[in-house]
């Protein structure tokens, strides 16, 4: 494992990051719920339980950070992480935007092409073959087999 940079190296501890994540969620939650009516304990308003949970989460997050600073494993951030972390969700986004106007066939092909970029060892011919096979499978299983009401072809 390469030596972590001297300044922010505590940010590379899994527990510290996890704690910060929980703190961030709690703070956003408290901010978003600032105007929710809290009500009374007998008649709880919209904000009672959410705000209570956020405060507890905030406390736990702080506790996890403190624990993590004392001990806890380092994690490595490298190039391939971003590759999969970007292209896997992106492939679903592409699918989401294409399926409505262009149908499931086009969306499937696009998902496979974008998704293939997430792996380091994808081979062009295999990707094309996978796209064809998956289109056929989708049509036979989901459209003709189960009869799911999804758009198949583009709406012209």
């Amino acid at each position, binding site marked *: 494992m390469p030596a972590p940079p001297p300044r922010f190296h505590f940010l590379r501890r899994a527990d510290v990051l996890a704690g910060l994540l929980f703190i961030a969620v709690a703070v956003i939650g408290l901010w978003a719920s600032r105007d*929710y009516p809290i009500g009374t304990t007998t008649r709880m308003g919209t904000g009672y*339980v959410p705000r209570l949970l956020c405060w507890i989460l905030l406390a736990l997050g702080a506790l*996890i950070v403190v624990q993590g600073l004392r001990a806890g494993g380092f994690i490595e951030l490298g190039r391939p992480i971003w590759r999969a972390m970007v292209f896997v969700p992106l492939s679903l*986004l592409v699918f*989401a935007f294409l399926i409505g106007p262009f149908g499931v066939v086009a969306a499937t092909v696009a998902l*496979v092409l974008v998704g293939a970029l997430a792996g380091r060892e994808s081979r062009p011919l295999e990707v094309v073959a996978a796209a064809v096979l998956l289109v056929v499978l989708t049509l036979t299983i989901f459209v003709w087999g189960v009869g799911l009401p*999804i758009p198949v072809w583009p709406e012209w």
Partner: protein
Amino acid sequence: MDFLANLALGFGVALTPANLGFALVGCLVGTLVGVLPGIGPVATVAMLLPLTFHLEPVSGLIMLAGIFYGAQYGGSTTAVLVNMPGETSSVVTCIDGHQMARNGRAGAALTVAALGSFFAGTVATFMIALFAPPLAKVGQSFGAPEYFSLMVVGLIAAVVLAHGSIIKAVAMVLLGLLLGLVGTDGQTGGQRFTFGITILSDGIGFVPLAIGVFGLGEVIANLVHPQQRRDLVSSKISNLWLTKEEFKQAWPASVRGTLVGSILGVLPGGGATLSAFAGYVVEKKLARDPSRFGKGAIEGVAGPESANNAGAQASFIPMLTLGIPGNAVMALMIGALTIHGIQPGPQVMTERPALFWGMVASMWIGNLMLVIINLPMIGLWVQLLKVPYRQLYLAILLFSAIGVYTVNNNSFEVILTALFGVLGYVFIRLECEPAPLLLGFILGPLMEENLRRAMRISGGDPMIFLNRPISLGLLIAAALLLLVVALPFIRGKRDEVFQG
């Protein structure tokens, strides 16, 4: 006798040709996905859930249960042949199962896993039929305070049984509870955490959450850290029969495993994985010659395989009778029931007896089918293992996308799934177990509702939870659970068990 009449009703429902067909399809699809390493049972069930939405509730649930058991069976096949658990519940099967395969006894290992699972499934089905009605009676006497305390026990148990840090698991539960509250407040009609997005006022769907966090997160993790080359033992599956000696060693282990699984499965937070680990530990402790373990001891396959199936099935008991999910898969089942318009809880058994008993009967039928499907078709499943991951994950991505989209024909949920996928990977990297999150998510709205009701009954006095004997007992149980795990001795043991 009620017991027989109930089972007769159940088999009447489960044995119709259509429902038999759905059970078969469920078992086949479940095995198919279970064999493939890299997608766990939660992601499998979540991905295939939408296939069942267009069916009658009974048929849909029968198929779902089939998918779940199929995944368990398929997982053990991969464990034996490839030394890679198809599902977490078959992690321990790898240890001795794969050694048996290398010793040329792959066929025997697969047979003992299948028959052990079938035996366990049969016993567990009877357990459900016997214990579900009295438990539901108890459940019907519960008021809001008791329900709230029961859910606290469930969440605490999930925390205690999660891997790694307990504080992190509690934080994950809270995160899940918060995610569950997103949307319109059922009591006041107020909007919560919708950030002005109209679609969010219906709340976050459990399918996008489960597929994203459990399915896509895992895919990203597998792409980032490619697995080592698979060590496939496929040429040697010639003889499926056990020798007399093997049979003599295996059957008592199978009985013990069934017992362990049936008990651990019912407990909140229990289920297949815990049962399998416990089953293995029991066998190793009881063995006259523990050094055989790890070198292909057949008890090391028979015990945990029976235990995980019994555990998987017994975990249906609290879900069906009380509406409380004991583990992540059961949380999905609760979600599926709700989508079918059934409010989970003790009233399901009395109001929809055909649904309840039909499902119980189909569990046994599904187990029988799996023995028949699995053993002769083993060659086919082995072929599946030869598909490289670089192609497999594309199929997983696609089926996830289609699965989520078809729940409501809604693109927004697919986008949500993508976001949860990233979050799921972050959780893996930060060593935060996602199962407590899903339980919190499903229980969040229910807990809030019961808390509010309890507070209204008591006029805002939280002592109501301690003044009622059942509620007090449940809370004491929860506190004891937490206390026990905090003890250093148990902590060490717990870590040891999870080391596998």
